[in-house]
């Protein structure tokens, strides 16, 4: 029984949140890694792209809610998501047309593009705060739990409850669907193959008649979709606050680099590595250990390796270790 309780506590506090957070990070890291593979720079504006896409979705969700449209037990935000994605696609294509394209044609150094993306970060951040303000926004509605802790305890008679939030369920399901769709696109369609060819060897791809502007456009469309989905899922699961998205940049980059920049499979693996390290290292294990240890050995403290405020440090240390020992990442990334 104790073992079962420990397992439930572990699932409830570590595994389920870790999977949900990992999915969000993976989606974010996929966007970063695609921009890196095709456009060949680290896009610092990605966090704020997520915030802007999520903001568009939040606004449309509110509109739908005011019209009385809802999805029943599911959050209305899911219905608003496609419109948010469209808004984000429009924004990114506009940005590319008037900002990035100039530097691409000039064949500017990647680091110049990184600085340009910093400028974009500023502007996106300003626009987000300008429109929706810097505060927390709530746009979740529908059923809160798929499995609530109380019901779980009642039906199983265990001491520990397992709660499974709707948002966590949606996050995981959406992430799986998106990843399958993305890989199908990259591996099976003509456009996807031309993207991979362009990423592998630009000159060769140009020689075989691939239109680079088209590849770039498709990339931005995919990146906008991924960023919006990741932003909305994170916003539903935690809360929508413009500033938090900028702070997500570090774990997202860490995930992309740990997996190998430019490698989509690596981005997903990296997302889960970072998420689980963060959750396991900052979780207070006392709750689980209480059931496993004999009474006299029960831990007195919280058995928390690091306080949650240091979660950035976790992704950072993992990043450093990978950079030191395997600079191309776990899966082979593009370059050192």
């Amino acid at each position, binding site marked *: 029984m104790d073992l079962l309780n420990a397992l439930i506590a572990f699932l409830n506090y570590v595994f389920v949140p870790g999977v949900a957070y990992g999915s969000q990070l993976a989606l974010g890291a996929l966007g970063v890694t695609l921009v890196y593979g095709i456009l060949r*720079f*680290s896009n*610092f504006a990605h966090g704020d792209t997520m915030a802007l896409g999520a903001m568009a979705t939040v606004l449309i969700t509110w509109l739908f809610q005011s019209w009385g449209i809802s999805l029943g037990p599911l959050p209305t935000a899911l219905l608003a998501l496609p419109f948010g994605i469209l808004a984000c696609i429009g924004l990114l294509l506009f940005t590319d047309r008037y*900002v990035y394209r*100039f530097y691409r044609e000039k064949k500017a150094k*990647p*680091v*110049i593009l*990184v*600085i*340009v993306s*910093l*400028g*974009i*970060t*500023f*502007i996106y*951040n*300003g*626009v987000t*705060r*300008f*429109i929706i*303000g*810097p505060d927390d926004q709530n746009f979740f509605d529908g059923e809160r739990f798929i499995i609530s802790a109380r019901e779980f305890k009642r039906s199983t008679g265990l001491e520990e409850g397992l709660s499974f939030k709707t948002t966590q369920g949606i996050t995981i399901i959406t992430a799986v669907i998106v990843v399958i769709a993305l890989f199908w696109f990259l591996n099976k369609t003509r456009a996807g193959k031309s993207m991979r060819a362009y990423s592998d060897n630009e000159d060769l791809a140009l020689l075989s008649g691939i239109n680079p502007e088209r590849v770039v456009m498709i990339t931005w469309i995919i990146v906008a979709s991924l960023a919006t989905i990741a932003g909305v899922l994170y916003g539903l699961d935690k809360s929508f606050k413009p500033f938090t998205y*900028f*702070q997500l*940049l*570090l774990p997202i*980059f*860490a995930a992309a*680099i740990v997996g190998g920049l430019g490698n989509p499979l690596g981005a997903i693996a990296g997302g889960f590595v970072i998420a689980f390290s963060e959750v396991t290292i900052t979780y207070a294990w006392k709750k689980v250990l209480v059931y496993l240890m004999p009474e006299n050995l029960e831990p007195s403290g919280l058995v928390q*390796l690091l*306080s949650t*405020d*240091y979660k*950035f*440090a976790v*992704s*950072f240390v993992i*990043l*450093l270790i990978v*950079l*030191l020992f395997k*600079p191309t990442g776990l899966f082979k990334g593009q*370059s*050192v």
Partner: protein
Amino acid sequence: MNGTLKNTMLFGIIALMIIYVGLVQSWNSALLIVAMGLISSIMALGVNLQWGFAGLFNVGIMGFVALGGLAAVLIGMPPTEGGFAAGGMGIIGALLLGAGTILAAIQVMKRMDHGWPRTIAVIAVLIIGFFLFRGLLDPAAERIEEINPAQTGYLGGLGLPVLIAWPVGGLFAAGAAWVIGKTALGLRSDYLAIATLGIAEIIIAVLKNEDWLTRGVKNVIGVPRPVPFEVDLQNSAAFVERAAGLGFDPVEGSTLWVKVLYIALFATVLLILMWMAQRALHSPWGRMLRAIRDNEVAAEAMGKDVKARHLQVFILGSAICGVAGAMMTTMDGQLTPGTYQPLRFTFLIWVMVIVGGSGNNLGSVLGGFLIWFLWVQVEPMGLWLMNLITSGMAEGSALKDHLIESAAHMRLLTMGMVLLLVLRFSPRGLIPEK
């Protein structure tokens, strides 16, 4: 138009703008802009050393600035009574143990052969070291934080003159830069950017959470000042008399005088650093750095140690940011870890360097003043603009209120626009590199 004339004009325009603020708003805000402009210029000088001379992309300026602020507290504040006795030895022991663990891990790494046993041994050393470190640090920190938590609850500082903190802040920042440089330099330029971004967040997290060190978000206030207090000046008969002679009332005169003293101190530091940076730029060392920046492969073929030079210049530039950070905390008189925002302390400095002209020290100073001026003045200007736009709207309409309320966020937009426009249309900046 020759270069000197153009530069003089550019600086003249900024001087006029500041004087205008003095006439229209208040001399106090004008002097504050000058003081912060000087500090910003020093930070920009440090970043210019890294980016302009060597092409290194550092987005962790905030962290180095915050380390400078920490130095101001650790050097300037008086020690907490009984604080050291309560846990000082424990803290020092824990820190030594932490450093020892990392050294031991590195030694294991070097001595053992490649393979699984080595990996396991390194991990074991690190884990054991970590638990010992926490076991020693936590109780000591707890004891220190128990001492009068409303007032102190931290170790305090050394109680030395706060001016010593300025070079020490530089040393702290240099130490952090060494660690980052050792790991991330020599890899792709983007990796350095991400590593610096990370270290900055971690430094801020440490300042916010390690109460025994910095009181965390409870803030350290009353950092000693290198200049007299306004109140003391107002009580001194000689000063009041002198102020009256110049036509100031004692309160206004004292605040202005204190600012003037700070400006004199900051200007001295800026001049020294500027002289050093100029000498460096025109020395063989500076030429070598630029050669490395422009063509790393060729420079390496000529026998230049690219990685070592990069590390050197990265440490130097970060140290300058640390000095500036200590100066800023000294002037503020308080360390408030919650106010360190990357947009304000990292990206703003970048805008300064790019707008002023990367690779040109004078340009960094100009950029520092110009962008700081904009940063301060955009908010009133934005508010004015919003009032103008919304003047036709109905009183009390939701849109009008929202627009006026959001004017505060105009800053970010403006800074982003300035950066993009300069990068696009004048990528060499206002005062280009020669």
